[in-house]
């Protein structure tokens, strides 16, 4: 087995490291903790964070890539499979490997369309053929299916509930023993009771849901299968990583530019400001879809001309994904840059900046110590607010054909594939439903979390507290 670190993996790890370092940094500074404590007090914010963290977990597992060693050896050297897998693939290997022949509905035991089947006695008849895996353990699908599904879902749900309750009880016990040692209990004040209650409820509901699905998935296709018989649940879960990468790496790519240029333009003014303003006016005056489309197509041509660069298909698709992030970053860069420039213009007239200037403090130090810390809330708000629109944009771009590589699983490619089947009679609806459903939950959670963050960080919205 050989670990493979794709470009986007590296980006994700970098992002994760930044997040961890940031958390550590903030924890030691009470004035930076303050807005986060406000986030923690919002029950909507915390519930959406919980849901988001599930998505992130799947995305992270899906970012630990490796290539399996093949059994045969070449002159004593280990040969690795050309297929790049992830930790998530290994966990969900059952889902991945149980492919059917073609479409089947969610929780079905038979294919979706009638086919000519040769029976044991050599007769040809048209019927719905049984699935290879889905409900294969049932002797009489028509009679048993319903009962079996309900039973399995019930057992799974109960198990999930049980595990969650044990987990909550243990966590509660740990917290209590910690907070009795700490006088006053630092944690008790973090979440007000209603936030704790809604967090608990959400945990339980999610556990029941996951338990039920986990118990059904080994013997059924919970969300059906697609045209080539791949389990749709697997596809949808794999799409999460792509969405997360687009939503976060794009920001990571654009952030340094926006921050540096925006602040430089606002603080230094003069010709620096003129040049930076010129650059972003040029970039923002090109309709963004056109710019993205043109750039992606050019890059596609480029990659096709250099197939020798890529060891595996996954690496190729990954580079395309990274490039998409880059170009999305370039187009969304201008908005934040303009915002930061405006804020810096305002800040540089603040009296504490003038006090620093009166000490002869260098421009660089003024920028890093006075201006950057005071614009960070804008950066943070715009990062969380952008996330959901980027996830949505990916779907649209992939759908139009200028998004991710067709071999990359994403919500856009899923929808694209499923749309062809809308015209079928009877309709194949589950792929679409799965893609839209997963995307809705992800984007809704992200939007709600972004709202909570904005409410906590935006100084203009906190006026009532200071009355």
């Amino acid at each position, binding site marked *: 087995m050989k670990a493979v670190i794709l470009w986007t993996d590296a980006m994700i790890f970098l992002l994760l490291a930044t997040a961890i370092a940031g958390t550590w940094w903030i924890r030691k500074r009470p*004035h930076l903790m303050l807005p986060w404590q406000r986030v923690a007090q919002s029950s909507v914010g915390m519930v959406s964070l919980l849901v988001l963290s599930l998505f992130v977990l799947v995305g992270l597992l899906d970012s630990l890539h490796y290539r399996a060693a093949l059994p045969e050896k070449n002159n004593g050297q280990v040969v690795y499979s050309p297929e790049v897998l992830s930790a998530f693939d290994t966990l969900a290997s059952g889902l991945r490997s149980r492919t059917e022949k073609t479409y089947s509905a969610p929780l079905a035991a038979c294919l979706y369309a009638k086919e000519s089947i040769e029976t044991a006695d050599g007769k040809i008849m048209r019927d719905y053929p049984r699935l290879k895996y889905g409900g294969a353990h049932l002797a009489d699908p028509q009679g048993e299916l319903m009962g079996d599904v309900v039973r399995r879902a019930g057992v799974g749900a109960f198990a999930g509930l049980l595990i969650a309750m044990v987990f909550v009880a243990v966590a509660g016990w740990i917290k209590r023993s910690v907070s009795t040692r700490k006088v006053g209990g630092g944690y008790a004040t973090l979440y007000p009771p209603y936030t704790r209650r809604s967090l608990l409820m959400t945990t339980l509901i999610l556990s029941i849901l996951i338990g039920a699905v986990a118990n059904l998935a080994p013997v059924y296709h919970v969300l059906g299968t697609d045209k080539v018989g791949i389990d749709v649940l697997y596809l949808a879960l794999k799409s999460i990583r792509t969405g997360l990468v687009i939503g976060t790496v794009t920001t990571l790519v654009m952030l340094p530019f926006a921050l540096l240029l925006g602040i430089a333009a606002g603080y230094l003014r003069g010709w620096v400001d003129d040049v930076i303003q010129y650059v972003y006016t040029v970039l923002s005056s090109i309709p963004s879809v056109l710019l993205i489309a043109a750039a992606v197509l050019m890059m596609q041509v480029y990659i096709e001309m250099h197939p020798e660069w890529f060891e595996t298909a996954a690496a190729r698709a990954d580079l395309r994904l990274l490039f998409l992030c880059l170009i999305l970053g370039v187009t969304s860069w201008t908005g934040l840059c303009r915002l930061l420039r405006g804020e810096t213009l305002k800040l540089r007239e603040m009296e*504490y900046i*003038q006090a620093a200037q009166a*000490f002869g403090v260098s421009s660089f130090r003024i920028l890093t110590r006075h201006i950057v810390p005071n614009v960070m809330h804008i950066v943070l708000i715009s990062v969380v607010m952008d996330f959901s629109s980027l996830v949505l944009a990916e779907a649209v771009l992939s759908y139009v054909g200028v998004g991710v590589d067709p071999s990359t699983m994403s919500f856009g490619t899923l929808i694209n594939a499923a749309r062809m089947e809308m015209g079928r009679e009877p309709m194949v609806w589950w792929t679409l439903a799965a893609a839209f459903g997963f995307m809705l939950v992800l984007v809704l959670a992200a939007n709600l979390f972004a709202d909570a963050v904005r409410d906590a960080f935006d100084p203009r919205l906190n006026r009532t507290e200071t*009355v």
Partner: protein
Amino acid sequence: MSALLKVEGLVTRLRNGARIVDDISFGIKAGETFALLGESGCGKSMTALSLMRLLPDSIHVESGAVQLDDADILALPERAMREVRGGKMAMIFQEPGLSLNPVMTVGEQIAEALELHGGRRGATILPSPQPSPLKGEGVEQRCIELLQQVGIPDAPRRLHEYPFQLSGGMKQRVMIAMALAGQPKLLVADEPTTALDVTIQAQVLQLLRDTQQQSGMSLLLITHDLGVVAQMAHQVAVMYAGHIVERASRAQLFSHPAHPYTQKLFAALPDTARSGQPLAAIPGNVPPLHDIPKGCRFAPRCDKAWALCHEQAPEWTTLEQGQGVRCHLYSEVRREKGEGVERGRENGEGGRVDAAPRFSPSSFSLFPSLLQVENLQVHFPIRKGILQRVVGQVKAVDGVSLEIPAGRTLALVGESGCGKTTAGKALLQLIRPTAGSVRFAGNELIGLNARQLRKQRAGMQMVFQDPYASLNPKMRVAEILQEGMDALDTPSPSGGGLGVGEERQLHIDELLDQVGLAQAAKWRYPHEFSGGQRQRIAIARALAVNPKLLICDEPTSALDVSVQAQILNLLKSLQQELNLSYLFISHNLAVVEYLAHEVCVMYLGCIVERGSVQDVLHHAQHPYTRALLSAVPRIDGRGVEVVRLPGDMPSPANPPQGCHFYPRCAHAMEICRAAYPGATGINATHSVHCHLYGGEKKA
């Protein structure tokens, strides 16, 4: 005569429970001016908004009763309340600039009020079956009348102008016109002159008095300014932390303030009579709303408090002649012992006397000069046209010369927009001067590059006006204080065998001691401090690099009176201790009188009069200085001759030809129109730029 407005036990609170206005009762008679006096955050504005039922969404009236003309205000349905607002009871606000709708003309905004309320009382003279709301011609005519009534010249033209085309004073006049449109019985004025300059404040207060006399309406005047109260009020209520702590007629209050807080307020005012002595500052700060003391709310800051004050809130006690007070000194328990009232009185006087040395004013020229400024000019270009060519100059500072000796204070006095702050910043080279010479300790500062300038920076530092904007919210106090030392590599005064880091920490501790803050403060962030404490930190930051000259730009104008006194005392003692020089920029003449040795009066970028405090503030020569002095409301009612300035300060982009002041000057002559007057010496230290004195020998 029965009361027009009666407020009984009014309680207004935040949704989360803090009581902003707590059990307030008072009454206002018809034609009377009732002043509600208090520092920021004491709940006086919220009281007014409660009466109008215009509280913000997060605040609501919990209990109490408000009677206006027999109408129970708090019980009225919203529709009927709208009749009251602007009809029986009108209101004007603190910031005339923000309180007028920027995209509607003055006329439209007044007409709105007229259409709602204007027709009603007109119907009593000419009874018509339907009280018709004014429309068309009638409305316009009435608008013009109202504008003329509030003293706006050229009213028919102003009618069609937008608020941004009017000056601050004009806007407040428009607000008053709008309030008068409904011929209210009660006008609620919430700090109506706080945002205005003194000469404009005098105009607006005069207008309020005149209108009141004409219309016989009552006035509820909300203010923090004892001077304004002295000029305007019949009855006064003093508020502190949501309570009314004292209520009396103006005469009683000013002659015998009963509550220790009121007494302290008087003692904290800088005044000529005491210019040598430290002010009796009230220690500490107003308690925050969510953490109100259990007993008397003033007890933690009161030097007469005893155990009972900390445990039990005092009841309302009525003294002779309707004066009332909320203080244990006067409660029944104490009075039986026969010491309450007496003690209060006696201490009220006692608070003013203090055994501090009097600083004797001495002649200026005896001291060697630390800072010499000659013909300083700061011009900002006005650009226009396709190619953005420079078509003119805003002459913010136009030829200012001054001199500050070591250990002395020079005050630069003027109204907003006169260029005094720009001049201060130009001295520090925060704004590059256009021309002139600034010599600090013998070194010319103008024309130095950034590196050369840095060497000179340690000598001169600045304390800014707004303590909330002058400290970076993301830095600890220690980091704030250390920044200057790091940038200028300041040698530590303590010195001796320690590493640079440790030395700096010691120095920071010393600085905090010096400005009267606990050493533990250095690990905290600015938002944890009150305005006065922040200003102390800002002073410590400036002192960190051992400067010889501090430029103080209105350092107390954002602070309450009681806190202002603390800061003024601190500045004064620091000057004695460290032999500092101050350039004190201010519009507040009382403060200047208290702190300064020499005074320069600025008008439109130029100094019009200079001299010692005694010369300028007591023997003022220039008509502008005189007007400025007479515009300041005095608490003792002792006015110099009344000089009212008409109009507003012209724009520095387009100053009048000749003497800048002549369009507003009562003594303007032909020559004033033609030439800017040169300096005329009155005596050795006193000179003035005015043609009235031009006949004498020119200095």
